[in-house]
């Protein structure tokens, strides 16, 4: 009982990062109809900027917050650049072209990271709490713990994704995003500057993704490749959200985390290596089948023009 409770707790906190990354992913998709696989690279780049700021320091809070803000800003800038230089020129190209362009940007960013920082493992000195809380004591499950940093990430995810959902559903800018998402040609006809709004969404999406990446890198380890797997999981959560509803990222992230966590344990007496990471891909296939109608509607050929 305690083991499975712990696995569920782990899953919820692990899934917070997926949910946050997915929110950035969905936002960009809503604005431009492009699956931004470069988001992982943008987040990694921001994380390396944070690493540079914190390297050799005493991991002070002020310095960390400053470095964190700089890293997020750099990622946002990369989002704008990507939209302007790689996506906008492909506005009239087949739907696959911008997707491939984002993969190209991801590879470019990974290469730049390796050239600048090398491929070695890096730890980001940080002031994030490292101790666990023994939350299980409350209900007599004394072995159940939760890491304080993981709780912080979960709180950030809930606040940020909720705020983002509110912005998209309750503000004029959000209305604009929805208009270019639903009918880009019509929105353009009504005077909406589609390119500009799309660029802003790319910046915001990259920034939200970078928050997730920087927190994940701070609490584990940084290298040019590790964040990419998280991006794939964010895609699963994004599809769960129909590539549309940000609120579902709040649920989808932790849900995927819990499923992964339980899949990594013994199931009917057997433990299958790699199932934990693979389960996300099974979920993706299942979601695409179950939500085929919603996804098809969302993926409809209504890209901004």
């Amino acid at each position: 009982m305690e083991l499975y409770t712990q696995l569920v707790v782990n899953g919820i906190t692990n899934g917070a990062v997926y949910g946050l990354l997915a929110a950035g992913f969905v936002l960009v998709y809503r604005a431009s109809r492009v699956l931004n696989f470069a988001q992982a690279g943008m987040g990694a780049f921001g994380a390396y900027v944070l690493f540079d700021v914190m390297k050799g320091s005493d991991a002070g809070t002020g310095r960390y917050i400053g470095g964190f803000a700089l890293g997020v800003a750099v990622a946002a800038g990369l989002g704008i650049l990507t939209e302007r230089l790689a996506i906008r020129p492909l506005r009239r190209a087949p739907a696959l072209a911008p997707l491939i362009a984002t993969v190209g940007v991801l590879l470019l960013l990974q290469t730049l990271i390796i050239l600048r920082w090398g491929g070695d493992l890096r730890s980001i000195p940080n002031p994030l709490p490292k101790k666990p809380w023994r939350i299980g004591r409350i209900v007599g499950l004394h072995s159940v713990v939760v890491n304080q940093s993981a709780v912080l990430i979960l709180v950030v995810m809930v606040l940020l994704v909720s705020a983002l959902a509110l912005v998209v559903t309750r503000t004029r800018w959000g209305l604009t995003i929805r208009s270019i998402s639903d009918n880009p040609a019509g929105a353009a006809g009504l005077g909406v500057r589609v390119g500009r709004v799309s660029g802003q969404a790319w910046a915001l999406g990259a920034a939200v993704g970078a928050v997730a990446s920087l927190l994940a890198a701070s609490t584990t380890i940084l290298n040019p490749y590790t964040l990419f797997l998280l991006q794939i999981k964010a895609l699963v959560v994004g599809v769960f959200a129909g590539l549309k509803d940000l609120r579902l990222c709040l649920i989808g992230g932790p849900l995927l985390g819990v499923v992964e966590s339980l899949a990594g344990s013994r199931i009917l007496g057997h433990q299958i290596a790699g199932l934990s990471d693979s389960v996300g891909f099974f979920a993706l296939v299942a979601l695409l089948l179950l939500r085929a109608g919603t996804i098809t509607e969302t993926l409809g050929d209504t890209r901004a023009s």
Partner: protein
Amino acid sequence: MSLLAAAVFCAAAACAGEQPKHLGLAANAGLTGGGPGGSAPGTATAPGAGPSGVTPADGAGQGAAGGAGSGGGSGAGAAGPVPAGGGEAAGSAGSGAPGGRGAAGAPAGAPGAGSAGAAGATGSGGATGAGGPRSAAGARAGAPGAGTAGAGTAGAGNGPAGAAGTAAAPAGGNGGATDVGVTADTIKLGGFFIESGPVGELGITLLKSVKAVFNEVNAAGGIYGRKLAIVDCDTSFTSGDKPRACYTKLTQQDKIFAFAATGDGPAWVTAAPLACKDQIPALWTDGLSQNEFTCPTIFPTGPAGRSQSHVVLDYYINKLHPKTVGILAQNDDIGNEWLTGAKDVLNKYGVKVVSEQKYNLGETNFTTQVTNMRFANPDFVFFSSEPLGPILFQKTAEGQGWKPPMPSAGVTCNVSVWPKEVGDYSKGMICENPWQLTSAHLPGQVEYERTYKKYWADWDKRNYYTETMWIAAKATVETLRRAGPNLTRARLLEVLRSGAFNGFDTGFGVKFSQHSSATGNLFSIAVAVVEVAKPADEDPYVLLQAPIPDPYFTAG
């Protein structure tokens, strides 16, 4: 020519003529002999090897299975108080003649150098002089049919790997393009290296170590006038497609002469069967993959992965007496190799495995593995894995506020990035090291540091993998030198299988102990045990146990 006839050189008395079961080598060496005696003319014109030549010429008196060996090697170590002969030449023919005299007047620095098989019973394969001075308990010298070719091996004291290792071109030229990948000017050698991926930064230093050695040799004129060219291919610490593509590129496009000093164990899982089938020599691979030990044309440098587990766990259990263990294992051939070795020892001592967690290379989230392990509550955790997974495992465990009662153990904590990244949590953990720690400042290590620093600025990134590749590159140079100017793949294999590297001093506190048969080769079974004492230090390790032979390396 029966160049591939099996020869067995057991330096350890206990293994006389037998092969280790766990390596899958033939249990009865010498069975494949019986071909005609070697007929290669002695080509022992190479100058001597190591400068000090303090190593006993193990296996002296070998070879000479009837060939027309033309006489002793012309040189040995400069100092070389090397006892000549000594092989228990019980064969009926061609007892290994004493080696020629060293250039500097040293007595016979070569193991059976020259191997003038004067009385070689042509065609009978009368083997001679297998074994060596250390085979007192009866190396199966003269086992019928175990004849080695009577090609005169170049004078070759098994001096420290720090030998200069160059050889001047013969006055009459070096024979030009004597085989694939060989010209009058260059020898093209291929290698799989880890240059990208999760452990890419670590892997690139392996290639740098090899290049440092080759640069040094080339600067001194090369080997018989030929420069060494390493053609590297990035296999990213993977099996499957990448190494397969690299294999094809190196062998068919680049047309390498041989694989040499190549360091990517997972790649060899895929490539070894291919190289073996095509009979392309692979000299001094890193030895991480079991496949490297099951082919007569592959010659690994380091100990087998399971030997690494054997030594470190045997030491650990005898010191700390744990009752239970949790294992984190890399889920691939290399991880399974370490895991198999671990289970040999755990079973022997009755240590119960209460949790076995596997992970795939590149996995970044270890909360589930840590949780499963924590709830199983083992006395200690053993890592059958590369460093990245365990680093993340330990950081996650720390985040869950869990540390097992006893220090961890593993096979790769000797990569300094581990204690640096994990910090105090890693303090006290124990792992293996195939060689003496570089802090011992042995002659080979001193030269390694000097040469590496001469060419590269990242000396701080050295680790035991880079040391292994350094040793491999030095052994490669020595092999090519001993093969003589008329360089062919057959000649190369002949030299490697002759036992000439039995007793070869790596310069890192370990001497090769050659075990060769028709199904595989093994050169080092020695492993040291080290402890992470000061995680934050530049050199965080202390030596707990100097390299010892794998105690599970049993005969029969």
